[in-house]
């Protein structure tokens, strides 16, 4: 029963998810609308509770057991609590019941987001440029014919994206565009078909109960 019930639910809803795309009959369409517009949203609302609960439990446990970098978990939990309170009670741009400014100092949810979350996020992502520069210097070598082709294509695409170079060599951006439009598309389509067929096969295996690893470890 422990296995059969989840398998039956997955089969039922898996098939039900596919049917509306093939059967335009009002009964199927209305049932799909009903499920999608109401029940799916309720399920997603539960996932928020699950997510918040899980993150609090994980970090609380980390603090309790004094695991590596446990101090940062305090920062995370405090940030979570502060932003949640301000977001829930402060309203959009401080129009809620909770005051979100002291004199000219504003700390409403939008200000917090634009002044803290955005620069922090952008900083983390921008580090990628430094790693890419160092990695390309070390790894991007014309060791064989294929690597040389890749190197030439990369050079053309990079040079084509530089406006001063495009001014000196007006045809280069179009060559770069051709690389993306023709050889890139050919490769991407092949990869895309492969991935899609793989996803389709795996999904069918899960729906039909052939693939059961998602159920977790069983005897």
């Amino acid at each position, binding site marked *: 029963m422990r296995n059969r019930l989840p398998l039956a639910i997955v089969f039922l809803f898996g098939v039900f998810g596919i049917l509306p795309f093939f059967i335009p009959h009002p009964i199927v369409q209305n049932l799909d609308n009903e499920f999608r517009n109401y029940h799916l949203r309720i399920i997603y609302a539960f996932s928020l509770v699950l997510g918040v609960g899980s993150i609090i439990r994980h970090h609380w446990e980390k603090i309790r057991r004094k695991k590596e970098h446990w101090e940062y978990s305090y920062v995370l939990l405090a940030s979570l609590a502060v932003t949640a309170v301000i977001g829930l009670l402060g309203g959009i741009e401080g129009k809620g019941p909770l005051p979100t400014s002291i004199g000219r100092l504003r700390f409403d949810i939008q200000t917090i987001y634009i002044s803290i979350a*955005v620069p922090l996020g952008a900083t983390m992502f921008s580090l990628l440029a430094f790693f890419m520069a160092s990695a390309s210097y070390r790894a991007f070598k014309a060791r064989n014919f294929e690597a040389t082709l890749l190197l030439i294509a990369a*050079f053309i695409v990079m040079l084509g994206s530089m406006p001063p170079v495009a001014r000196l060599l007006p045809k280069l951006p*179009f060559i770069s565009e051709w690389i993306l439009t023709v050889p890139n598309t050919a490769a*991407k389509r092949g990869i895309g078909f492969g991935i899609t067929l793989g996803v389709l096969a795996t999904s069918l295996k899960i729906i039909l109960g052939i693939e059961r690893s998602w159920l977790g470890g069983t005897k």
Partner: protein
Amino acid sequence: MNFWEKLQKIDRRIIYFLLLLVIIIPQFRPIKFKPKAMPPVERLFRYIDNIPEDKALLISVDYSPDTEPELHPMTYSLLRHAFARRVKVGVLTLGILGLGLAEDALKTVVKEFQGKAKTSLDSIIYGRDYVFLGWQTPPLVVLLGMGESITKVFPVDYYGNKTDTIPFLQKIRNYRDVSIVVSIAGSAVPFWYVTYAQTTFGVRVGAGSTAVQAADFYPYLNSGQVTGLIAGMKGAAEYEELVERELNVKERRKATEAMTSQTFAHIVIILFIIIGNISFFFLRKKKR
């Protein structure tokens, strides 16, 4: 260790430092390189430029702070374009992190236009010219639900107003009244619009993406499933150029400014790759 070996093993801190310099210095005095718009950007611009009066442009702000420097200028440019052409704009997001960014872009661009407006007709008015629908989840509900009724998916807008009382949404009811949805994302969200919204309801889809992800969009662009594509900082700068040149909208061009840093960073990376390859060849020759 001889000269060529040393060239093979340049300390990564030197690379980081040089890159830091070429990125930061141009920020103080950016050179305004004027890029020529490539066909994917031009196609999207022309399509939006010809949106009929009774149809709307939907902008889906599906990126998060990490890709903000690259993608936010695209939202600015699209809004400037639509407002300058008096195209109705609906803004939404499928990811909660896009909310603050969408609000920021709307506030900034509306302020730019309000600053120049002399009459109510020139002004950009909420509920008449644009609407901010906010965020709803799960994405599948939004993508398919908007094909039936936008107000049903978003009963209230971002500011808590009932959407069925907003004049904009009394005219723009579902995808049939939407000319194109432009999803700006650092992820696969634009493909979701193609898979669900376009396949089921036939709505046109445009995309804005990061440069590293742009290659993924070309198969869709070639098949016509994606009408146009703004790819990376370069694409954003090209769109800015088109908006300024063709509509005479002269505002701060963040992507064009950032192109200076990006250009110099690319030059440094190319130089290091060349250095790495020259030393590699000399060492290989020596070994033989």
